[in-house]
């Protein structure tokens, strides 16, 4: 059930930075097979910042590994800069930077030694290294830390060093697998600002996996992935617009009866709890607001002022996932094939 916000079709796949169509990856286990990536299609144009966003175990890491050619695909096709993931791995390696999720920089080597090490791996000449390394250290804000052991860097600085190392051979495309995981908000912001600078100054194509829904706002295009499937794709604003209705927020003194009372009301699509607050998705704010207020009054539920708020990416995701689950449940009920729902029961990351 793919929601398509952008109807714009790309003429030729070779013009795309990254392309996948019908991409599927199945792992065999003792209990049977698990489809980690299920018929996934995406296109990333050059210069775009594409976010593949979804919870742990949704299939983000497998997708990136298959696209990079580190894992063989079970079905479908994928390519980077027109080079096939499985057949043209050498060409891909020359033009692509990658930060793995469990990216390990040699901890007993200094920042400078790490940079030289990765430059060496890429076969870079001494002259190129002398030009390129200081430039990258400056960009990553690590110029004053060249002599520090990588193991002694803070979490945020390690991520910046990893980024600098993956850019050493001037790739046209980078794939970053959860580069901000476990990093505090300040370092997260700094890392994304670096990505923004790369996009603006060099036109770098950036593909990022992240479980942080708020990072969607930093991307030009996103794909929401859940249980191996892309459940929505488009620009961040387009994804939010896929959720029907508008959100009214308020805090009742007791949320359980308020939730029960409002859930079935006319014009109410769904109610999500948000800490002590309730978020009510309605068709028409000006019409439903007084109706909800009246309903709460008759039940004797006290509350603060009802106010319209903007839908957040995380809410859009939850809403789209729930819709997906309802569709899957229906399909499961109708289908006699026990394998039909296996993707929905949880994938592999």
């Amino acid at each position, binding site marked *: 059930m793919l929601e398509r916000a952008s109807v714009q079709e790309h003429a030729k796949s070779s013009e795309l930075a990254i392309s996948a169509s019908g991409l599927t990856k199945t792992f065999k286990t003792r209990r049977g097979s698990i489809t980690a990536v299920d018929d996934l299609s995406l296109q990333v144009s050059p*210069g775009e*910042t594409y976010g593949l966003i979804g*919870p*742990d*175990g949704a299939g983000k890491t497998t997708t990136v590994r298959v696209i990079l050619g580190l894992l063989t695909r079970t079905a479908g096709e994928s390519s980077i800069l027109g080079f096939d993931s499985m057949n043209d791995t050498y060409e891909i390696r020359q033009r692509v930077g990658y930060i793995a999720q469990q990216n390990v920089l040699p901890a007993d080597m200094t920042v400078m030694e790490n940079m030289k090490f990765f430059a060496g791996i890429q076969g870079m000449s001494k002259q190129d290294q002398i030009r390129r390394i200081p430039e990258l250290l400056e960009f990553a804000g690590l110029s004053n830390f060249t002599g520090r052991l990588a193991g002694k860097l*803070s*979490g*945020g600085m390690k991520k910046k060093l990893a980024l600098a190392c993956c850019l050493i051979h001037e790739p046209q495309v980078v794939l970053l697998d959860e580069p901000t*995981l*476990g*990093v*505090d*908000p*300040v*370092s*997260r*912001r700094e890392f*994304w*600002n670096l990505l*923004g*600078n790369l*996009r*603006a*100054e060099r*036109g770098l194509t950036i593909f990022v996996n992240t*479980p*942080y*829904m*708020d990072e969607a*706002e*930093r*991307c*030009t295009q996103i794909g929401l992935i859940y249980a191996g499937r892309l459940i929505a794709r488009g*620009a*961040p604003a387009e994804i939010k617009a896929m959720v029907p209705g508008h959100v009214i927020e308020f805090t009742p003194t*007791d*949320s359980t009866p308020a939730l029960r009372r409002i859930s079935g009301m006319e014009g109410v699509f769904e109610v*999500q*709890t*948000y*800490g*002590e*607050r309730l978020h009510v998705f309605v068709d028409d704010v000006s019409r439903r607001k007084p109706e909800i207020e009246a309903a709460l009054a008759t039940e004797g539920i006290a509350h603060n002022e009802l106010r319209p708020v903007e839908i*957040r990416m*995380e809410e859009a*995701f*939850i809403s789209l*996932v729930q819709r997906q689950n309802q569709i899957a449940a229906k399909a499961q009920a109708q289908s006699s094939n026990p394998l039909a729902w296996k993707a929905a029961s*949880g994938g592999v990351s």
Partner: protein
Amino acid sequence: MSNSPSENQASIVVQGLTKKFGDFIAVDGVSFNVNAGEVFGWLGPNGAGKTTTIRILLGLMTPTSGSSFVLGLNSATQTKAMHAVVGYMSQLFTLYGDLTAAENIRFYGMVYGLSNSELKLRQAEIIHMAGLDGRENVLTSSLSGGWKQRLALGCAIVHRPKVVFLDEPTAGVDPISRREFWTLIYAMAKEGVTVLVTTHYMDEAELCQRVGFITQGRLVAIDTPSRLKQTQMRGDVLEISVSNPDEAMRALKAAQQSRRLPLDEVALYGAQIHVVTPSAEEYKEAIRELLNGEGIEIRSIEWIAPTLEDVFISSVNAPRLRGQA
């Protein structure tokens, strides 16, 4: 904050708390109170002193100076009595993977000295709370992240503590489980339990009734999320929509570096650019002129309400900026 032992007496009292490790000051003269039944967010970058504060509050570490009280019990001198009434959950979900869900609850219950009948009751309650009905006898190692997390919370509150410390309880858990977890937090608060929670998710910080920002060991701001947004943001956030955001980004960055415009931050947000300036009114036109001069077509330049993350970063960076001056 009143000092009388009234109903509103603070559950957590921190007074001039300082902790030094050699020359390094991990916590620097921190004072704050958390009220009974309050959900309080304790936020800061890594290494800011969050966990050190919690360790001192739990009596696991002695402060260099200052003191702290939980439910009126001194953390340093009345530790044992205090442990009977507090719960603690860390991001590591300290559960035994080779025990079943029910066995984990019973194990923690026995550690806290619960009677057999109370154990039975709590086991049933916690299994239900964690949504584990029918999975009581599943090995904990095979539960998904969300279930493990709710089970870990259940084990942390098996002895019905009145104050609960949650140190990054939602790290690595999917958005739907995180949402459910916060519903549990508020269910506890409704029953009068005081919750102190740390998180790196700023959307969760928004859910707290009050938050404190700590950076470099110092408490730099403490208030409700909505008031922090009104009082703590240094400057205004402008959202700029243009035909070519990459080009506009380069122009704005150049203006920032040459100090032609006072821009604290220039950052790409998808198709938009966010800039932080001392005053939206004062510099909106200057930004417009700059972009027009570069031949960039402007769709809109609008003031937007800062997010809690904007405020947090502004608060955290302020001491650094002052240090440089």
